[in-house]
Structure formats: structure tokens, C-alpha cells
């Protein structure tokens, strides 16, 4: 393992890293010291970089390319959990002369889907994904004669994994997995001490076009963790088409992150949840019969009191005619969300129904949009109600889902993603 953190890396006995260097971040001096460190670490060896087109892995590969030149082979792994058309688009974008990363496309969708078959728990899905990811990467590294793997791990990735909030697919040594014995390569993480906003700055400095340096984050396991619970081809299909609609409609608003997730309409029939309807009604100032609340069976990730909370998602339905009279109700809904989450420890997230289509397939699409600076905390984005309705209508028109919700949970108690 390369210790490229030695200049700042306070470590304690358990192997946990403590320190993140952020003092007066200057892209050019960071680049100088980081490339020097990479040159020294890799020496005359070769490295492979898995690039996803996201800002972290792209910037990490660019930093490595500066240090290693042709001794870096960039690849793009198509996990099958990518958005419609994404592998081809990213490949051609990266080949632009401004970026100059010629990636080799590795198609492994079938293997990834097989790997998570039968898994519905978020952490299991993430761990299975990680396993397949590194197996594929290890094989590709071997094929290209590379003993090093460059990846775009950033500070919140290992902070969250180490803290047990969620398993990030790209975090190994910080949680005690030795990549050399497990997968046959050594890992280099040029960005592991940076936060997202600093990576974006560095990207700009490396001439990454604006739309790529500002690109919204897309999780490593991709649509896998937006397919809440069991993964199926049907759910993935719905998610791909909804994602396209959501990205198109929300793109102009410049929220830091916006996306959709899909969940099955299976609800918990626990009498304890009966009182949620009244809690919601009281917060919204409506009669209880007008605010039914459904609690989904499949669990979703949250964070409460600095600890991972793998809990339930409650969906508030407001009768269409009250909705038309009262409008969006953002303040009241915020109050309803916090009252529900405070009163019921097992509920981590609350969503509000935007529109439903009776008799449609038993799937719900949940729209999520947040504003955040560093992805450690997040506020619910005030998407205009009309836009949410447009999104819902387009999704429902396709006949893929029967309900569309908007997630109204900040982080905490929610996380930005659902799993």
C-alpha cells in the first residue's frame, strides 16, 4: 500500500486516518506535490485508472496522467447500472482534446447484475458491487500489466465508510482490506484528502470543461443504489427512463444533486404507523382523513445522531383537492417531516406524493433534489411544485410506475442517496 498521506496523515493504532489537509487549498501547488509523490511511488511501473466520467475519477486520472504519461491506462467499466447511453457518451467526451483521456470500454453489466442477485439489503448490495468491481479491475490491471490502480476516492467517501454510515465501493484500505492480497494490485488515491468543492477547483485548473468539473455526483454503484431493495431488470428500466426525465427537467435549476429512485409499493401493515396520519394532519393543518401515510417495506439509509440509521421511508399523500387549494406547503411539510422522524425512531425519511395513477404497475419513483456544499449535510431543494407535477406526469404517462413522490428529508436524518 502506498502511503501518500504521509505529509499530513495522523494515524492512530487502529489504522484510522485522522487528518485532511485543506489549509488554503491551492490547485497548482497541490498538483506539483501530488504528481511528484505519484512519480516516486509508481517509479517505472504502470497504473490503470477506472474512470466513470464523474469529476472525482476523471480528475484523479488526469492527475495520474500528468505524473505517469503513457504508463497510465484509463478504462471505463460499464457496470450495467449506468444511465441510458452513458458509457458511449462518457467515452467520447473523455477523448476530447481538452481532456485527452482515451479510455478502453469494459462491458461487465451481466457480471454485476449476477453479483447482486437476490440481495435486497443496501449494505450487502454495496459490498457485492465492490467485490465485482475490484475483481473486474484486477483482471484488467493484470491484462495491461499494471500493478497500481488509481482511483478517485475523496474525503467524505472514507469518512462515511469508516464511520459505518455506508460502504463506498472505492474504499478498501481504510476499512482494513488489503487490495494486494485480495485483488492483486496496489491503490493510489491522489484526491483522498480533498472535499468535492476542492476537487472541482482542481478540475478547473486541469482544464476540465465546466460541465464536467461541475457535473453532479453519480454514485459508483450507480443506479444499483437507486433501485431500492431487490434489483430487477424491470426496476432498472423504469429507473433509466425516469432518470432521463428528471435530469432534463431539473437540470436548469443547478441544484448540487438531483435524481430519481425506484421502490416497490409494498407497505408495512403495523398498527403503530396508524398514528402517522394524525401526526401529518396536525403538522399540515388538515383533517386526518386527507393525509394518509404509507410506510414502505424496503429500508432506506439515513443518519441520525451521527450514526447510520437503516430505517423506513414514509410517504405522505395529500388529497388532490386540498393540494390544489393549498399549493406546495414547503414549511408545513418540513414540519411534518421533522415531527414524524423525531417521533418514530425507525423512520429515517419522509416523502410527499406528487401524483399517482390508479391501476398502474406497483412501483413508485421518488424524486430527490438537494442543495449542499460539501455533501456532508444537505437541504431539500425548493423545486417549484409545477415542475414536480410535470415530472410526475411524464413518468406516469410512460406507464412504468403508479406513484411519483418527492423526498422532503434533509441530511441528517436522510442521506443524499437512498442506499
Amino acid at each position, binding site marked *: 500500500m502506498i502511503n501518500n498521506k504521509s505529509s499530513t496523515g*495522523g494515524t492512530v493504532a487502529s489504522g484510522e486516518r485522522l*487528518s485532511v489537509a485543506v489549509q*488554503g487549498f491551492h490547485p497548482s501547488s497541490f498538483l506539483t506535490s501530488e504528481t511528484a509523490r505519484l512519480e516516486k511511488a509508481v517509479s517505472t511501473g504502470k497504473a490503470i485508472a477506472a474512470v466513470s466520467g464523474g469529476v472525482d475519477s476523471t480528475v484523479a486520472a488526469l492527475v495520474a496522467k500528468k505524473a505517469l504519461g503513457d504508463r497510465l491506462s484509463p478504462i471505463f467499466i460499464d457496470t450495467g447500472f449506468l444511465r441510458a447511453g452513458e458509457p458511449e457518451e462518457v467515452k467520447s467526451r473523455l477523448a476530447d482534446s481538452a481532456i485527452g483521456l482515451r479510455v478502453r470500454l469494459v462491458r461487465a453489466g451481466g457480471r454485476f447484475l449476477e453479483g447482486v442477485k437476490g440481495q435486497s439489503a443496501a449494505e450487502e448490495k454495496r459490498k457485492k458491487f465492490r467485490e465485482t468491481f475490484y475483481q473486474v479491475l484486477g483482471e484488467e490491471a493484470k491484462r495491461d500489466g499494471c500493478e497500481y490502480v488509481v482511483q478517485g476516492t475523496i474525503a467524505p467517501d472514507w469518512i462515511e465508510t469508516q464511520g459505518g454510515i455506508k460502504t463506498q465501493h472505492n474504499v478498501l484500505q481504510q476499512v482494513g482490506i488489503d487490495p494486494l492480497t485480495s485483488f492483486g494490485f496496489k491503490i493510489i488515491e491522489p484526491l483522498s484528502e480533498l*472535499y468535492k468543492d476542492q476537487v472541482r477547483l482542481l478540475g478547473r485548473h486541469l482544464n476540465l470543461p465546466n460541465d464536467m468539473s461541475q457535473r453532479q455526483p453519480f454514485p459508483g454503484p450507480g443506479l444499483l443504489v437507486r433501485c431500492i431493495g431487490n434489483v430487477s431488470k424491470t426496476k432498472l428500466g423504469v429507473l433509466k427512463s425516469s432518470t432521463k426525465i428528471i435530469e432534463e427537467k431539473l437540470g436548469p435549476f443547478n441544484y448540487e444533486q438531483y435524481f430519481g429512485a425506484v421502490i416497490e409499493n409494498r407497505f408495512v401493515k403495523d398498527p403503530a404507523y396508524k398514528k402517522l396520519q394524525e401526526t401529518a394532519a396536525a403538522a399540515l393543518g388538515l383533517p386526518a382523513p386527507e393525509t394518509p401515510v404509507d410506510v414502505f417495506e424496503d429500508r432506506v439509509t439515513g443518519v*441520525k445522531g451521527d450514526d447510520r440509521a437503516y430505517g423506513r421511508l414514509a410517504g405522505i399523500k395529500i388529497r388532490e383537492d386540498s393540494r390544489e387549494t393549498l399549493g406546495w406547503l414547503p414549511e408545513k411539510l418540513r414540519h411534518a417531516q421533522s415531527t414524524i422522524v423525531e417521533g418514530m*425512531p425507525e423512520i429515517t425519511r419522509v416523502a410527499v406524493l406528487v401524483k399517482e395513477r390508479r391501476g398502474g404497475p406497483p412501483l413508485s419513483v421518488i424524486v430527490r433534489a438537494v442543495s449542499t456544499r460539501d455533501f456532508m449535510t444537505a437541504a431539500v431543494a425548493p423545486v417549484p411544485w409545477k415542475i414536480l407535477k410535470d415530472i410526475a406526469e411524464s413518468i406516469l404517462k410512460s406507464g412504468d410506475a403508479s406513484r411519483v413522490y418527492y423526498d422532503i428529508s434533509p441530511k441528517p*436524518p436522510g442521506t443524499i442517496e437512498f442506499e
Partner: protein
Amino acid sequence: MTVIPVVYVKGQYNHLIARRLQELGVDSQLVPPSTPLSKLEAMGADALVMGGGPQSVRSLDSLPQELKEASDLMRQTKLPMLCICVTHQLMATTFGGKTNLARKPEFGPVEVYVNEEDTILQGLKPSFTAWESHNDEVVALPPSFKALASSENCKIQAMRHEVRNVFGVEFHPEVSHTPKGVDIFKNFLAAIG
């Protein structure tokens, strides 16, 4: 340059504390709670900030290792201190107060009302929005401490020692969603400067 080590007790936001302090020109890095006083002195520490964490404080006899060490450190050091979330609760308990399950937990945005604009809360009257993430809260102040701020659900959002520059806050001034959080660090710096 002011030196303020951040005592790391496994919280998600502990790194952000160091980052905020660094942005204010402070020499700040994370240290484990087991750091001996002599080492803090050798570092030239002017004050300590202690972060939050996922643990629960009930009694001093049943603390997890890192909080036991943090509690010992609080008792031994004479440095000014700002303790956040779980270490705010730990400080109350260490000095003779009490922490228990909150009547109502708080997550995300909470309006914090300033009762006394004392030192760290200078300029923050009448209230400000802070982000919170806690299941427990301080239910009894230790002797020689006074409460400075409260919220609808939580009576002791901030407290201070009556004489020493020792402060505790339940909310998270280090996260970007607490817009006035930086004022709290600035006020703390002014107080120890």
C-alpha cells in the same frame, strides 16, 4: 498562528471542524483523545475543540474508550475548550451534570434561540438556524455552568463555564448548513486571543 487541535471522537463532521478553523487561519489538525497533555503543549495548543460522535453518554462508568479518554482530557487540561454535540454532553456529565435521552430528538434544521449573547454567541441574538443530529441531550447543567441558548425541543443548546473559557454546544457550527456557525468559531477565537 493560533493552534487549535480538534479532538477526534469518530464523528462524521470532525474533519469539517478542522477545515472551518483552517479557513479562519488557525493551525488545526485532528488528534486522538488519548493525546497526552505534554504533547498538546509541545504542539503549542492555544485551545481545544472537541467534535461529535455516534456514542451515547449515560454515566462516566460506562463510556466507550474514546469518550473515556476525552473525559479525562477535559478534566486535566486548563486550555479553553469548545465541545460540540456528544462532547458537549460528555462535558456536562464529566463536570457533574447529566445527559439523557432527549424528550424529542432533533435532526436537520432547528431554530436556536439565544438567551444570553455571551462570548461565543456574540451577535447571534435573537435566534439563528443550526443543523442538529442528536438523540440525547444535556438534561442537567453541571455546577458553575450556565445555559446560553435553547430550542423548542432542547433546553440546553449552548452552555459555558461561569469563569473559564469552556463552552459546549449541542448543534453543529462546523457544517455549511449552519450559516452562522463560522461566527461561533470567530467568537471563540476572539475570546481566547
